[in-house]
């Protein structure tokens, strides 16, 4: 995940109309879309809402000028893990259906139910579209901007400051991890080499994790001390400058929020189904 962090930050530093939007606008749109999707009941109605939201996401992604491959790579890093868990739903009964029709019977009394397949698909649609908006947000917003945006939206100063430090440490951890890994490679150490005793391998890995922690801490401590010398302090984020949204940003935010709220309500009221 640390390696992915470097790629995400590289993507966020690119330029596009979406990249240039204020972080607050992107946070509000992403969160609103996720809340709206989760608020839709577990019913086939989600197929239509999910398809429209995904189309909205695709339009926004096209505006970012980022390759669809970036989205696919990031989505594929997350989806398989939960895909397995969603897949298991097809064998389970849940409280959202009263009757279950067996589609297939397997050994050991395991059945696959039509309703469970439908429920798994509903979960999958909700999950994928929610993840897509998170990928859009993080791929187009620098971490520092996200932090400042969060602080302007009311994120407590203590959180903002500690988050800022934490993100710095994540990068320090990443660099330390690379360095220590290279050092171990030059010593021809392989943690999966069965010729070495298990105790020896564990001890070496323990030293590696410990060294990474202490070195990162001390590196971070030095950086933080120098920041303090320049007047930075734990109160700094209490004074994030106020910044208003531009007219275009207000318009984009308003239209997007209306769209995000109106679509599920309209689909629910009209019982319109695309699928």
């Amino acid at each position, binding site marked *: 995940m640390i390696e992915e962090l470097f790629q995400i930050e590289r993507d966020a530093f690119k330029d596009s109309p979406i990249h240039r939007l204020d972080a607050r606008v992107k946070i509000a749109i992403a969160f609103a879309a996720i809340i709206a999707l989760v608020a839709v009941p577990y019913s086939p109605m989600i197929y239509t809402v999910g398809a429209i939201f995904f189309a909205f996401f695709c339009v926004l992604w096209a505006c970012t000028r980022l390759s669809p491959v970036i989205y696919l790579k990031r989505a594929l890093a997350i989806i398989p893990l939960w895909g397995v868990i969603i897949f298991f739903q097809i064998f389970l009964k849940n409280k959202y259906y009263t009757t279950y029709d067996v589609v297939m019977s397997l050994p050991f009394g395991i059945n696959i139910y039509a309703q469970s397949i439908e429920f798994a698909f509903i979960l999958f649609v909700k999950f994928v579209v929610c993840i897509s908006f998170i990928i859009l947000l993080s791929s187009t917003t620098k971490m520092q901007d996200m932090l400042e945006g969060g602080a302007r939206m009311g994120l407590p100063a203590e959180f903002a400051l500690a988050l800022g430090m934490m993100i710095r440490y*994540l990068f320090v951890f990443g660099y330390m991890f690379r360095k220590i890994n290279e050092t171990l490679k030059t010593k021809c150490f392989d943690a999966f080499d069965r010729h070495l005793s298990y105790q020896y391998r564990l001890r070496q890995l323990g030293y590696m994790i410990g060294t990474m922690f202490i070195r990162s801490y001390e590196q*971070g401590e030095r950086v933080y001390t120098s920041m303090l010398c320049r007047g930075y302090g734990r109160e700094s984020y209490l004074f994030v400058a106020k910044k208003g949204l531009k007219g275009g940003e207000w318009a984009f935010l308003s239209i997007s929020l209306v769209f995000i709220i109106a679509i599920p309500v309209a689909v629910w009221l009209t019982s319109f189904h695309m699928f």
Partner: protein
Amino acid sequence: MHIPDAFIPIWQGAIYWIIALVFVALALRWARNEMNEEKLPLVAVLAAGIFALQSFNLPVSMGTSGHLVGGALAAIILGSPFAAVFILSLVLIVQGVLFGDGGITTMGANIINMGVIGGFVGFYSFKGLMGVTKSMPISGFVAAWLACLIPALACAVEMYFAGTFPLTEGLVAMGIYHAIIGVIEGFVTVAAIYLITSVRPDLVDTGVKTPAGAQVP
């Protein structure tokens, strides 16, 4: 153990958020009082370290995923269960907003499981065991094991309430899996406390000032 969006209905997610916010507010009070210029880098590095620990994520059948938690480690090093709530909240924000690991609507539930339950179970079981055994390795190991297992069981119960998987299967799957992961978590926690007390005993706030844990308040 990170419950993603869509796995908990919105109204249940809102209830978990409200409960979590109470503890987050108390954690913020801890941060205002305790997080001074010296402690801030440690809080941040612990958060980054726990983030790295939680990166090792594996699926658990019938339910959700399994990984190390780190709540006990944070609470023991910083000497307060609210430190764990604070740090785990930071970790979950970064994981949820940047990586899509965990969710936005389910973040309250995840904070309760890993931060609140993990932190409180880890901290108080460590304190209790230290009083009895006077041994950091034993106390740290058991505390971390419990702080891994009990949040996992809580996660299974929440998923049951959500209707996204049955209770018995979830408890069995999550319980067995995290009982095993908890052993690794126990070793990592003891190793981290041992290392920090050996190299920088000034950073540890629980009163454990030697690797063996002889000096208890």
